[in-house]
């Protein structure tokens, strides 16, 4: 029985980490049961409706490092921004939620006795995933091919009626030049990784500075492979160090 403080909760919007400018978040998941009570029923009877979700984020008005205000203003007319919220923080192994969202309101609030607030309500635009951070480590490129395998996690098997989802956020941490990074999420039926299968392939990107953000999906495997891990390969002449945050989850197709 874990009980956690919310003091280190993490907030990601696409490739941006806004944990440093947010101070309160509410995640609301709902479905409205429809009443289907018939005369012959002894009690009120209901059936499930369609689920929906909203993320309400209260934050601080920041215009640089990070430019939260600017990004949120831009996002007023953007669509399908991926918001990730991790109650225990952005550490590997932590559970959280990722959802494709649109802003439904974003007030800036100035009061004489308080800091300026920038609050955002994100309306879910499609199915959210209950995600787990399965990689939160760095890879340092050295001019030759470097292969890094992440820790394996037993996340269960996924039927073909589900879509498995990977979210990859890569942050350049230093070095020089340019590198090619390939990332995939592999699966295996145990933690020995004798012959892993590619479960989700993100492809290859060339990166130098800044942050990259990719999502990739695949149909559930209908197999017995319940272990998942990340494999990252770097190549190219650069000497960059990259921090990789990779989340994994699923939704019912």
């Amino acid at each position, binding site marked *: 029985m874990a009980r956690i403080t919310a003091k280190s909760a993490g907030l990601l919007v696409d490739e941006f980490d806004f944990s440093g400018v947010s101070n309160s978040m509410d995640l609301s*998941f*709902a479905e409205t049961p429809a009443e289907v009570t018939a005369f012959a029923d002894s*009690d009120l009877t209901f059936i499930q409706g369609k689920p929906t979700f909203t993320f309400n984020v209260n934050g601080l008005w920041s215009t640089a490092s990070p430019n939260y205000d600017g990004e949120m203003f831009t996002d007023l007319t953007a669509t399908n921004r991926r918001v990730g919220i991790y*109650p225990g923080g952005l550490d590997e192994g932590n559970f959280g939620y990722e959802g494709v969202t649109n802003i439904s309101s974003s007030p800036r609030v100035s009061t004489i006795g308080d800091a300026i607030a920038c609050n955002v309500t994100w309306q879910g635009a499609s199915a959210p995933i209950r995600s787990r951070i399965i990689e939160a480590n760095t890879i340092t490129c050295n001019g030759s091919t470097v292969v890094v395998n992440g820790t394996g996690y037993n996340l269960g098997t996924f039927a073909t009626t589900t879509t498995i989802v990977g979210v990859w956020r890569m942050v350049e941490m230093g070095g020089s030049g340019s590198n090619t990074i390939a990332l995939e999420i592999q699966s295996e039926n145990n933690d020995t990784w004798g012959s892993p299968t590619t479960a989700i392939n993100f492809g290859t990107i060339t990166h130098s500075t800044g942050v990259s953000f990719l999502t990739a999906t695949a149909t559930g495997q209908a197999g017995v492979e319940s272990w998942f891990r990340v494999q990252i390969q770097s190549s190219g002449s650069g000497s960059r160090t990259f921090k990789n945050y990779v989340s994994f989850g699923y939704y019912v197709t």
Partner: protein
Amino acid sequence: MARTHGKDSNFSFNSVAIEDELSSITMNATVAESEITAFSDTYQNFIAGKKGVSFDVSGSLDMAASQGDATIFDHIHTTSGPKTLVYDPDGAGPDTNSPEYTCTSSGLTGAICSSYTINLPVGGAATYSATFQCSGSTTRAVS
């Protein structure tokens, strides 16, 4: 006259006991009353409709696998139909003077989570609240 502390309540949803996360449970039992007052009546008169039961719960967020968060979200997310809900107010039932309320999953009967909210304040604990609408019969067992 018995007086019972609420400190030992038990609550489970879809066979997952979550009383180790919860700190508040409210069972709402309602009956829609239809007014049937006639001109000749001295007082307003009502007639009972069908009864309904719902639960409001709140407690500490536990994100670990197979705990409350995973169980409740999976139910909403997969719309997998009503689940069995059990509420034992004093944690000692079911027994005489120690009832246990159960909404058992079967067909249209069972509990449906209609809302689930996670609260993450920077200065406090991660908490959640949820509302379960019982569909069909909720039983009160005393043995």
